[in-house]
């Protein structure tokens, strides 16, 4: 596969630490396009090793708007079937540029390990020194050891190591879209995480045309109803919780976006510094980046203050716990104060609700957002599943896909064709989606 690809599939046997590489077959791309659709196939091919597949979408890391997402695919301990969750922030981007399109992790290690992926090289590396450390300290430790603050991580904390039902794989320091207990699976494989860094180059078959079409779509987005909206607050309001936006507002510091995503889906709150301070604070850990609207709303529902809710989210992220599941299970257990909740986090067990069909993560609200409501028509659930499938194939940020009708399937097929010299027909996409959701 010559274009929009590193042309490499990495197979890692965690049992033997053996690492092998395959080329990415162009025929496979012509049939399944990319991302979670190919990851599912790899997952089935390596089923005897109970694999975890890390994948990039066909357009991930390009100049097409919102191409921030990579994905984790595995048989979920929560749903019992192959499920997929997105990896966003700048982690999805770094995966793309670290030199592999797909990474299959099969088997289990006997001792704690992590996978260090950098510039087309992958090493199974001892993780004994970070086993037992929380998510924050682990990311910190890897960045320090490798001497690069821009290393991006997928990492578990104590919850995953202990086999908690609600363990989550986190991105750097923050919550991810893992609602499927993939953190538990990482822990069972003694896989502390993956660290990525890369300076690769992605070539497009017709780069000028690819860029021109990307810019046309971006310009349409800039003129859409999304202009001027940003952050978790506006997202909560768009999802039907305007009161939660006001509740959060006093502690908001700044909003930030995942790679090349026109809407800032993340909001940093200051818990131990003045949220109005714009100069760099002396406090090395002044607050928390809220990346998970559902989890925040879960703690809001319990009746906590916004600061208390965000303290709980921070504790969840350090332990590597799915905040939305923690909020739901805490509420069911009658926990009503932030300290009670935080003290009991590691002991929580049980299954939380998973909205949707269990294929794609409900970290992206299971509803159309902003102007997408009109496009969703009379069957928003079916619309959402298809929209997610499309975004998980091409590498589009799922939350952005749920709010932005300007990114059409036609545009995606066209730009994918321009970028790869492969002709992708609408029927190809329909088939890839059917394979993914069937």
């Amino acid at each position, binding site marked *: 596969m010559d274009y929009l690809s590193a042309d490499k599939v990495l197979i890692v046997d965690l049992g033997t630490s053996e690492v092998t590489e395959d080329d990415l077959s162009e025929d496979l791309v012509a049939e399944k396009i990319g991302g979670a659709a190919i990851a599912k196939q790899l997952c089935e091919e390596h089923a005897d090793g109970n694999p975890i597949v890390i994948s990039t979408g066909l357009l991930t890391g390009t100049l097409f708007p919102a191409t921030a997402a990579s994905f984790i695919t595995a048989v979920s301990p929560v749903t019992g079937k192959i499920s997929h969750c997105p990896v966003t922030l700048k982690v999805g981007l770094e995966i793309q540029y670290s030199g592999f399109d797909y990474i299959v992790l099969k088997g289990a290690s006997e001792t704690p390990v992590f996978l260090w992926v950098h510039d087309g090289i992958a090493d199974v590396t001892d993780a004994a020194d970070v086993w037992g450390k929380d998510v924050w300290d682990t990311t910190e430790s890897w960045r320090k050891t490798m001497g690069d603050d821009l290393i991006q991580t997928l990492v578990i904390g104590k919850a995953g190591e202990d086999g908690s039902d609600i363990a989550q794989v986190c991105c750097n320091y923050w919550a991810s879209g893992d609602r499927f207990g993939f953190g538990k699976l990482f822990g069972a494989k003694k896989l502390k995480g993956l660290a990525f860094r890369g300076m690769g180059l992605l070539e*497009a078959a017709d780069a000028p045309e690819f*860029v021109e079409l990307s*810019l046309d779509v971006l310009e349409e987005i800039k003129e859409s109803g999304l202009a001027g909206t940003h952050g978790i607050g506006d997202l909560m309001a768009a999802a039907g919780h305007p009161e939660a936006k006001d509740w959060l507002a006093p502690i908001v510091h700044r909003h*930030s976006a*995942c790679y090349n995503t026109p809407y800032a889906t993340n909001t940093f709150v200051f818990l131990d510094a003045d949220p109005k301070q*714009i100069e760099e604070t002396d406090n090395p850990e002044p607050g928390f980046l809220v990346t998970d609207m559902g989890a925040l709303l879960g703690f809001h529902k319990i009746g906590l203050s916004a600061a208390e809710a965000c303290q709980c989210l921070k504790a969840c992220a350090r332990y590597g716990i799915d905040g939305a599941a923690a909020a739901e299970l805490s509420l069911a257990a009658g926990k009503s104060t932030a300290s009670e909740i935080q003290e009991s986090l590691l002991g929580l067990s049980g299954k939380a609700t998973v909205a949707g069909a269990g294929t794609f993560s409900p970290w992206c609200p299971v509803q159309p957002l902003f102007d997408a409501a009109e496009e969703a028509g009379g069957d928003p659930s079916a619309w959402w599943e298809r929209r997610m499938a499309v975004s998980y194939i091409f590498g589009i940020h799922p939350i952005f896909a749920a709010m932005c009708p300007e990114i059409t399937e036609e545009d995606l097929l066209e730009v994918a064709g321009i970028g790869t010299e492969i002709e992708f027909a609408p029927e190809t996409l329909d088939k890839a989606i059917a394979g993914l959701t069937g």
Partner: protein
Amino acid sequence: MGIKIDALKCTGCMACEMACGYHRDDGFALLSSCIVAYRTREKKDYFGVLLKREEDLLIARPEGTEIRRLGETEEEADSGKEQDASAKPMLLREACDLCEEMEIGPMCVKFCPVNAITEE
């Protein structure tokens, strides 16, 4: 003509960095961009944009823009100060040429989704 950056508007999305990388390498890459979103202070939520120009480095911080002579930046980066950790790799890159050969104009301006970069 020059480039003006409003770091308070910036969401740290890196689109400008990729757009500049495309201008340099005719593909998607970040290695040669002369504009970068600095993001090493992730836990502090402190981010902005660095632009390498012929004579100096423009540092667009949330609290305002600072301009450093290249020699000055080099000395500070060599001293290992955290403040300028992102600046050092910039010193080796080519300076902004305002995308003079690009038909569509300055790429970073075009691709910034929140209009934090403008021509002046």
